């Protein structure tokens, strides 16, 4: 009951309500613009959050996350281009339905499904995050090491890119985290005599570079791309008949999305694809999928928004990001001096439940904004890239510079922008680099401290049941993509 009051606290704070309002609005705009999305947007806004208190900063980032995930559906339905990768599955049925002159109905189904999925996942977050945090009290250094390894091996099975390429990218991320003074011995590593590198490489230059600058370079290769926008009169709420058809799909996908979100490193993209395919599997009319089925839209949208709350569970309870955007939120927590984990639940419940409550309100807010403003948001796609991206560059450069007022950070941002572009070009996802960078310190720190505890005996890891369980799960996570590929091959042969 006390926690419920703590959750309602943002409703009574004018400042938090204002932050939520702007966060949701900004998130929707970011979600609508192809190439931006909540991850890049969150990275861009990170330096600005330094002017806010930690709760307002995280509320801003989470509201961007919730609204941005939904915003992707607007462009997916109206211009057949997902605003965010998580909305890719929404294109499959959203655009065909819009082409039939039912864009308003398609957006109505997407809005309702997204809001229900998002609210469902916040409920999961409220119940499961404290449970997971309680479990984490049993964790010592070896368990945290095994957990971080599990989080990293999950990178092998994330949606885009080959499993091995994702692992290389994740390892590269950890390697970046080793730059600077060694935290145990203060010995310089990879600094090459550059003083600025002694402190290590900051999260923000890498995040902004890999997401915003690399996207700018990607956009420079697609200047001839023309979007065809389907006309939209108004968003229509689903009819009673529609609700009868989709309510089971929404609930199923909300469950799937929340579960997928909880898994480390997995996020809305994987959730929406599974939500969509499960909706098709359970549908009475699977032949309509791909031709404008509202079940398809509901399946994908409920799942990707449900993944938002799910992904916050490991992020807050264990400090392991559940998705790319939660990796940015985790960065926000760290730069504001908040260390996620079980202690956070015990020491700062008002902070945590404030976040939960804000996420709930953000889901309601984007429903209202989406319902009344989708037509307006759709017009944002008309802003040409030749004007938009130079502006984003100016914000990126000033934002990155502002953190430690160091020009080196700006060079680092540009360097990672170029690296990120080529990584994406050759099929390496940039998300594992960020997750690796965030988990790097945890992996190395817990490994070295564990070895001190175990007197250098590596086999002692296997004597700890929780650590052993995570290692077995890691092996499964590594084997899963191979098994999935074999199964697919067998299917094709048949």
């Amino acid at each position, binding site marked *: 009951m006390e926690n419920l009051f703590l959750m309602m606290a943002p409703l009574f704070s004018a400042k938090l309500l204002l932050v939520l309002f702007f966060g949701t609005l900004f998130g929707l705009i970011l979600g609508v613009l192809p190439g931006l999305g909540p991850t890049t947007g969150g990275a861009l806004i990170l330096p600005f959050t330094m002017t806010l208190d930690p709760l307002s900063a995280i509320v801003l980032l989470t509201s961007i996350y919730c609204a941005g995930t939904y915003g992707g559906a607007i462009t997916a339905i109206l211009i057949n281009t997902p605003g965010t990768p998580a909305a890719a599955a929404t294109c499959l049925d959203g655009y065909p339905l819009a082409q039939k002159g039912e864009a308003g109905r398609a957006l109505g189904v997407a809005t309702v499904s997204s809001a229900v999925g998002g609210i469902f996942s916040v409920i999961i977050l409220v119940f499961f995050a404290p449970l997971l945090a309680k479990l984490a009290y049993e964790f010592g250094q070896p368990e945290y090491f095994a957990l971080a390894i599990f989080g990293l091996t999950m990178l092998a099975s994330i949606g885009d890119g080959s499993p091995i390429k994702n692992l290389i990218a994740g*390892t590269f991320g950890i390697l970046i985290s080793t730059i600077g003074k060694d935290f145990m011995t203060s*010995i310089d590593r990879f600094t090459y005599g550059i003083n600025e590198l002694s402190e290590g490489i900051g999260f923000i230059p890498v995040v902004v570079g890999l997401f915003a600058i690399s996207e700018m370079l990607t956009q420079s290769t697609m200047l001839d791309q023309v979007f065809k926008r389907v006309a939209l009169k108004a968003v229509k709420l689903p009819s009673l008949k529609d609700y009868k058809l989709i309510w089971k799909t929404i609930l199923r996908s909300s469950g799937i999305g929340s579960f997928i979100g909880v898994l480390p490193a997995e996020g809305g993209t994987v959730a929406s694809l599974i939500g969509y395919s499960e909706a098709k599997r359970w549908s009475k009319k699977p032949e309509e999928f791909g031709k404008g089925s509202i079940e398809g839209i509901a399946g994908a949208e409920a799942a990707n928004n449900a993944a938002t709350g799910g992904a916050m569970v490991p992020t807050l309870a264990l400090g392991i990001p559940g998705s790319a955007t939660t990796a940015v939120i985790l960065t926000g927590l760290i730069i504001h001096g908040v260390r996620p984990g079980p202690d956070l639940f015990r020491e700062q419940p008002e902070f945590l439940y404030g976040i939960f409550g804000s996420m709930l309100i953000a889901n309601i807010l984007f429903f209202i904004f989406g319902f009344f403003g989708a037509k307006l948001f759709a017009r944002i796609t008309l802003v040409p890239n030749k004007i938009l*991206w130079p*502006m984003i*560059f100016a914000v990126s450069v*000033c934002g990155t510079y502002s953190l430690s*007022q160091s020009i080196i950070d700006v060079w680092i941002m540009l360097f990672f922008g170029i690296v990120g572009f080529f990584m994406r070009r050759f099929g390496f996802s940039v998300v594992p680099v960020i997750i690796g960078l965030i988990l790097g310190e945890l992996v190395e720190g817990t490994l*070295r*401290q564990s*070895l001190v505890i175990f007197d250098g005996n590596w086999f002692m890891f296997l004597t700890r049941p929780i650590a052993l369980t995570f290692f077995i799960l890691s092996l499964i996570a590594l084997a899963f993509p191979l098994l999935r590929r074999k199964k697919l091959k067998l299917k094709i042969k048949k």
Partner: protein
Amino acid sequence: MNNVQNKKRANKISLPFFLKDEFKVSFIIVFISIILLITTFTFDIVPPILNRGIQPATFPKALLVLIICLTLGIYYLSLKKPWKVEKKLPKSFYLTLLSFVLFITISKTLDFFLAISVLSIFVSYHWGEKRIFYLLLVSIIFPLIVFIFFETILGLRFPPGIITNIYYY
């Protein structure tokens, strides 16, 4: 159309192995990793009496060896299934890259704010914007708003330069 695609694919397959993207990318990753691996041998060593756990160089060494092994793995797999790499990079990409070089040069020698303006106008123009108002918007009006926002609200002090100095003094 299909014939053209097949021809292109056939040409790609017939390229010598060292000109294929898969080899070039794998080679660059392995080459850089080996250089970094060599660097790790120059890290200071903690005397055994003070050493707790592993040496500071051991962890990065392990990561680099892992990257090399995984890269060899993706190269081996690419022999069976070549990568699908998008079309050749257009001129606009190289011009954008050039704008970064311009940005670095100007911000280092002349002025940070001027560098942002030059990059913005350069990118916007080469991406197809020819209208004067919009070019002024992205190169002067917007950077000025960002500059004032960061300077006044966030209390940021930008590095000195020919334009920034006029504002500060």
